[in-house]
């Protein structure tokens, strides 16, 4: 599939807008879903998902053909979702900067406080409940967990998508897994 996408990208670069439609059509669900998991809201996911493709189109000439197109696209999407989260009112999100290892205790504690009332959980499908718990992670852990386990990127690819050193990616996955373990052990 990647070669076919590369072909389409070349056509777009030559000015063929209709070739871009096939790219959007191919990646729309993946990108929408990624935005949804990052933002926890369908309306915003649609907005940011569309913005991702518009940015990709406008900046298509800066895409290096030797690289993987999907990595580039996820990079745009992830950056846009993080920007959107930052622009929300401070009380809207949980990512009060957590420094060092103390952070783990802090957000795992938050996770316990954030837990939904029992009756609500019972009515919710398990998979949606899990989506909710992933969304409850601070964005920097949320993004790596989503990319690793739901989009199935390799550690190196995640490092490319997020433009972070491999070691940082590993640390974030490690902490994200621990935080989720605490949230999901009672499931």
């Amino acid at each position: 599939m990647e070669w076919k996408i590369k072909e389409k990208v070349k056509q777009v670069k030559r000015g063929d807008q209709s070739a871009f439609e096939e790219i959007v059509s191919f990646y729309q669900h993946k990108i929408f879903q990624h935005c949804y998991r990052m933002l926890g809201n369908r309306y915003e996911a649609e907005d940011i998902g569309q913005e991702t493709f518009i940015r990709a189109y406008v900046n298509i000439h800066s895409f290096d053909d030797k690289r993987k197109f999907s990595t580039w696209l996820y990079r745009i999407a992830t950056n846009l979702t993080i920007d959107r989260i930052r622009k929300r009112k401070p009380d809207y999100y949980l990512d009060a900067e957590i420094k060092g290892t103390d952070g783990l205790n802090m957000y795992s504690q938050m996770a316990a406080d954030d837990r939904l009332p029992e009756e609500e959980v019972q009515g919710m499908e398990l998979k949606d409940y899990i989506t909710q718990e992933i969304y409850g992670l601070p964005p920097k852990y949320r993004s790596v967990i989503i990319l690793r386990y739901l989009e199935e990127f390799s550690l190196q690819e995640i490092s490319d998508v997020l433009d972070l050193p491999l070691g940082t990616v590993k640390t974030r996955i490690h902490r994200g897994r621990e935080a989720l373990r605490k949230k999901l052990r009672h499931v």
Partner: protein
Amino acid sequence: MSCSQEKIKLMHQYLDGGLEKQEEDKLRAHLEECEACQQHFHELKRTITLVQSAGQYKAPDHFTGEVMKKLPAEKKRVKYSR
């Protein structure tokens, strides 16, 4: 509670596929004799399975159409510049 941060770190390295055979054997031997770590490891693996079973979400039907409508107009001159 689990043993030490060091053992937990090994578990995460294992889950990322970055453990040398020797360290893996060490971890396995420890898990066999330490119930708390075994539990911790089991919870981590189960967490991954649970995360992988999270809901799938599809873009709305009009998604691609909306994107195409919002794109800046095609630069006509590109066609002739070739």
